[in-house]
């Protein structure tokens, strides 16, 4: 029995990847929840808006690389993020002005807006494919690892290596900073509170003199920041493929609903709930049991509950279970 190796194994294959993936989902889920809370519709274009933002970041990365600008050990994409965010915000405001605004003005029911967002999804998808194509692209440059598995083994003398990718550390750090800033903004500033008020009771917000146009604009600005950064972090950690981003919409929606849709803190935690469940259920525990069980009881199969191909089934099941038994989400309480 060798518990230390077993723990390192779990850290390396479950804990760190799930924390990273969860952060990426959390950013998307807060985006979904914010749009739902304030503009009152389920935005099916979430995944593709994230892929649009990432595409812009890749284009800027290529441009900076062609100019010979780089951040040394850090990926050039970090430098491209602010420019990509600006493009993303402009794209969102453009779509809002020419598509969503009309339905908001006519007070269309939320399901109609959701259908409209599916149209936006298809258009965005097409725009991304026309500009950058459907291929898988890696745009990570700079130092890939902070600790390599081999180095870790040499350092500690353990059998199991703990690899720490710089994209993982970046994802977690940036998410923590971004989410803290967002919660500070929503809970402490006058504008943030007026967004909460607008989400809580639109008519009374109008009677209090809160300007709905400004609220909608700020919502899209925040959404643009979240979508771009969430998308770029996912792309740096894995790779950028428009279809994958579209697929990620399922775990992102699941995360937002698990957290209680309209509740950003719930969405944030929901991201981790979904990520950990997916990875826990699709990890093959054979090696883990080889460490913790005596040699005579060594498992023969892979001890994998679900094949990784079924990872979307996990988020889908969580989504269905939550909607059946706890439709208001597992973190009830304050909205927005």
């Amino acid at each position, binding site marked *: 029995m060798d518990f230390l190796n077993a723990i390192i194994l779990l850290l390396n294959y479950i804990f760190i990847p799930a924390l990273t993936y969860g952060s990426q989902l959390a950013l998307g889920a807060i985006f979904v929840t914010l749009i739902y809370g304030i503009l009152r519709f389920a935005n099916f274009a979430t995944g593709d808006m994230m892929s649009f933002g990432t595409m812009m970041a890749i284009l800027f990365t290529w441009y900076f690389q062609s100019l010979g600008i780089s951040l040394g050990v850090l990926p050039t994409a970090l430098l491209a993020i602010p420019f990509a965010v600006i493009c993303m915000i402009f794209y969102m405001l453009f779509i809002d002005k020419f598509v969503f605004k009309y339905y908001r003005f006519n007070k269309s029911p939320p399901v109609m807006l959701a259908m409209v967002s599916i149209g936006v999804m298809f258009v965005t998808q097409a725009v991304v494919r026309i500009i950058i194509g459907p291929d898988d692209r890696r745009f990570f440059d700079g130092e890939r690892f902070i600790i390599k598995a081999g180095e870790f083994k040499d350092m500690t003398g353990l059998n199991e290596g703990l690899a720490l990718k710089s994209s993982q550390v970046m994802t977690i750090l940036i998410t923590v900073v971004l989410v803290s800033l967002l919660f500070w903004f929503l809970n402490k500033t006058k504008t943030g*509170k007026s967004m909460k*008020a607008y989400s809580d009771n639109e*008519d*009374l*917000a109008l*009677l*209090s*003199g809160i*300007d709905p146009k400004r609220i909608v604009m700020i919502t899209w600005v925040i959404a643009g920041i979240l979508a771009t950064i969430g998308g770029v972090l996912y792309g740096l950690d894995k790779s950028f493929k428009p279809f994958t981003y579209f697929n990620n919409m399922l775990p992102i929606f699941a995360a937002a609903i698990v957290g209680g849709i309209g509740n950003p803190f719930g969405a944030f935690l929901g991201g981790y709930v979904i990520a950990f469940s997916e990875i826990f259920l699709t990890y093959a525990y054979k090696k883990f049991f080889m460490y913790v069980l005596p040699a005579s009881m060594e498992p023969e199969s892979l001890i994998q509950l679900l094949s990784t191909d079924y990872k979307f089934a996990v988020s889908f099941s969580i989504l269905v279970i939550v909607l059946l038994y706890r439709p208001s989400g597992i973190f009830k309480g304050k909205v927005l």
Partner: protein
Amino acid sequence: MAYFEGENMTGGYGNGPDIINSCSVKVERGEIVSILGPNGAGKSTAMKAMLGLLNLKSGSVKIDGKDITMMSPQDRVKEGISFVPQTKNVFAGMTVEENLEMGAFLVLDNYKSIIDEIYSLFPILKEKRNQLVGELSGGQRQQVALGRALMIRPSVLMLDEPTAGVSPIVMDELFDHIVKVKRTNVAILMVEQNAKQALNISDRGYVLVTGENRYSGTGQELLNDPRVRSSFLGG
């Protein structure tokens, strides 16, 4: 000429039929005026017309001599007209203090002193300042709603059935609060179902029937008027 007045207002919602017909309502500062009448008489509609929530076909609305007939409700808030709707009149997911802050959204300078004034008017709110409004009792919620509306230091306060759905004891307490607000030189216009109690604290009242002024007079006059008594006050 009264401080806040709607003169010969005629109109309805959207393109629908007229709900109020040349209806006139006047309020002075430091005065409570009640609009009474049977169901469907257009009481709330008359009030909403003065707030700008429906387009008038004819007639005018004036505050302090200034014609505001064409102004949007948001702009009327800036003129010092505050409104407490009958339902959904608080931000249920926010704390008491945040509700008051939102009421002061248009107040650019320091509103902390106004919050203190509201707390001295409604002491219970100070005690519950950090509690979510959704967790308060009906009477306390109405106080939050009044407090939110008072944050802009309005010159006109309009209340749509402030005592709907609260117990008789809480109703008396709320009316006491409304009288306190009136003493701060605010013009108060309210629509009420509890006609007797409302007339008791009102300086004047209007009785509307099918969108028209039927009777008007001081609170006591209306209370003693046999026609009003028999039709609306239950004998």
